[in-house]
């Protein structure tokens, strides 16, 4: 080939190319690489703040496990996150973008709290199942609303579920201010604390919600993988046309799945109110329903991976709070650190699907 080349135009320096399916091992290696990079970048940030990165990281990990109480707190952090992550997983598998786990969790807590606040005289063995059921119904119905509108009118579920979160949140504000306000509390409005009958008992020092969460983990995993319903959810998620072709009632499946998705979030709300906070509060969900979306995606909608990631998130959460108090840092510091780690880990998903190729002269690709 001659070396003299006349070019009509210049070539682009970088090209983004879609990859073939990447091997599991390679993808895992890439994800770990991203985590490492995240820790390095976070370390630079810590260094800029004038602290030792190793010290901070060590405190973060040890902080989550340093005492029995710390471990219990870590587990407690896991419960609502695991439940809401499973909740959105059910919907996401169907490609129904349920951004409303937050609201569904709150509604579950509201329904359960009705019994916790006003029927605390019922025996514990009756009251707890009733509250659990109320949580399921509350969350489920709140999940059903966007599904009904989507199947009937084709509304956008992302916006719909997102806006419902605020409705749920401000409903709690209203309840706290007026009808459910604790009359015995002077000063500013707040809910009364549940009676003891309405509180989940502790097992191994942690509220027994963790048992419920583990049962739900297994139940959701089995439901998605081995049941007819689970199969229908995957088919609808992959292609609605195929589902209709196979004679599935797509509307029914969407409604059913969204009820279940909401119900699992509702359980999270009930467990949180009855087990952790001991009553309803404005901060009952505290953004867990949104974090769940990240967890579900990072776990690739696989219940087992979701369990692991929930654990890591809980460690990070608890660890950051210890770091905060140990190094006397502001709350924003932990958020920035979490943001950096998430940025890298989520960003690496791009490189699993695409690669960037630099061009050399003559249209040859450097590989």
């Amino acid at each position, binding site marked *: 080939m001659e070396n003299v080349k006349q070019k*009509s135009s210049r070539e682009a320096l970088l090209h983004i190319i879609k*990859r073939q399916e990447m091997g599991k091992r390679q993808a895992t290696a890439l994800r770990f690489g991203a985590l490492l990079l995240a820790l390095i970048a976070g370390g630079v940030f810590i260094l800029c703040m004038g602290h030792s990165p190793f010290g901070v990281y060590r405190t973060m990990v040890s902080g989550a496990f340093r005492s029995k109480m710390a471990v219990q707190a870590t587990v407690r952090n896991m419960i609502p996150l695991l439940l809401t992550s499973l909740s959105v997983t059910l919907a996401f598998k169907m490609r129904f973008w349920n951004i409303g786990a937050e609201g569904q969790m709150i509604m579950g807590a509201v329904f359960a709290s009705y019994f916790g606040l006003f029927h605390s005289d019922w025996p514990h063995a009756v009251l707890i199942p009733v509250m659990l059921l109320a949580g399921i119904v509350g969350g489920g119905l709140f999940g059903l609303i966007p599904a009904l509108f989507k199947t009937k009118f084709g509304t956008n579920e992302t916006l719909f579920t997102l806006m419902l979160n605020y409705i749920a949140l401000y409903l709690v504000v209203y309840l706290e201010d007026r009808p459910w306000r604790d009359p015995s509390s002077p000063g500013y409005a707040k809910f009364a604390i549940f009676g003891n009958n309405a509180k989940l008992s502790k097992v191994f020092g942690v509220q027994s919600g963790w048992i419920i969460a583990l049962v739900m983990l297994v139940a959701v995993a089995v439901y998605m993988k081995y049941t*007819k319903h689970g199969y229908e959810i995957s088919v609808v998620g992959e*292609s609605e046309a195929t589902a209709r*072709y196979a004679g599935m009632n797509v509307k029914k499946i969407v409604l059913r799945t969204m009820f279940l998705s909401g119900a699992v979030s509702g359980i999270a709300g009930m467990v949180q109110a009855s087990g952790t906070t001991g009553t309803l509060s404005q901060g009952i969900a505290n953004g867990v329903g949104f974090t769940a979306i990240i967890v579900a995606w990072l776990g690739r909608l696989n219940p087992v991976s979701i369990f692991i990631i929930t654990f890591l998130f809980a460690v990070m959460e608890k660890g950051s709070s210890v770091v905060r108090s140990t190094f006397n840092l502001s709350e924003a510091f932990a958020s920035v650190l979490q943001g950096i780690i998430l940025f890298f880990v989520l960003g690496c998903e791009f490189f699993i699907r695409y690669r960037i190729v630099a061009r050399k002269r003559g*249209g*040859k690709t450097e590989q």
Partner: protein
Amino acid sequence: MTAQKENNVAIECRGITKRFGSVVANDKINLTVRKGEILALLGENGSGKTTLMNMLSGIYHPDEGSILVDGREVTINSPTDATKLGIGMIHQHFKLVEVFSAMENIVLGTRETLQKPKEMKARIEELSARFGLEIDPQEKIYNMSVSEKQTVEILKVLYRGAKILILDEPTAVLTPQETEKLFEILRRMKSEGNAVIIITHKLNEVLSISDRVTILRKGRSIETVVTSESDVHSLTELMVGRPVELSIDRPPVENRSEILKVVNLSIRKPDGALALNDVSFTINRGEILGIAGVAGSGQKELCEGLVGLLSVEKGAILYDKENIVGKTPAEIIDLGISMSFIPEDRLGMGLVAGMGMVENMLLKSYRSKKGPFVKTQPAREQAQRLIKRLEIVTPGVDTPVRMMSGGNVQKVLLGREIESSPNVLITAYPVRGLDINSSYTVYELLNEQKKKNVAVIYVGEDLDVLLELCDRIMVLCHGKITGIVDADKVTKDEIGLMMTGEQLQSESETEGEN
């Protein structure tokens, strides 16, 4: 290479290689097109024709090799670069703005959009006249027929001063008459000294239009032959790599007994337009009923209406005088009819692309088992049985079907449907995108079903195949039946005429027979 010869070459590819991941789509391809010549690029689906042309038009960039235009090496980075070099591509799927007029589409993206409409119109009309194109520049695209849209696409590239024209499967959507008209236009371009590359897999067309043929097989340029020195058989052999028997078997119909009678059926598309307008016909056991028509004449709606995927506006589908319109699939099965449908969109409708063979087998059978759980074992066995019986090539029964080749995907779908032993089998474009071998496997499978007394509906686009395979052919035009004819008593031209809406005189006789 002498200087003079070099001058005569419009475009040349030297050792072009293009990889997609681990797949080598083009492997050191060489191709030369001279000025004033029509070159046919022949090859089966997946042989790399479109990839190569996409590199010439700047959509992809070659990994290796060089492209020479007028003897100068060039780098084509974008369709704009290609346009500047005088390369114009007419894609298989039109790239037009439906709500714009022909003229607006033609000037779109050029600097001349700011000209006065009158001047633009004059220029387009002058161009049309020169090449014998008939088009009203002010007509909106959505009002146009497929062949008119194609004319607009051609004008679009001519307006940009293209000297090298690339047409990707231009005849796939045309009637025989429209095809002849297109070829007339191409010959006119050739006589003006332009170079034309036409991608196709229809051999008859290659022989009638091209000067030379370059054959691609599995991403390699196998050979370039002079058209006048070759015939259908030699070209097929080059294309497939070995001699192929090209005739399709048509076993005689034994006892023609009616299974379904469609009466005055009308179906609307989801957007409200009438897709099928008052259609009546019968389907018999043990025959293959072909359905011909320009794309979008109501074939899709007819199939989906028959199997109950689209709601019927008016009319009836009778099985033994019982109307099955509005019945659930379960009720239809209770009547003793088992209908199978091979949709046009195999991966988007017939199968779940992201699932493996096993889970795709379950699609039709998962409900029949009792209890809340799915039993995968029978489906796994069924998948393995199909792999053996139909010689399906796949790394495993759990490999997502979207990773399989088109022919194997179709075998999975057809195999699953045939295993449910239907008595009505509806197939929409079952060989579209398949290589010759797979196509013949499909014809054989359909004939096998016919011999088992299954009523087969075959919606097709290749009229030669329809004429050879089917017993009767029903022609649709704008949602109306323009004729139902016996395949052995009709010519391709007659069907072509019916596709454009002309009723055939013999139609009344054929209907009398039924």
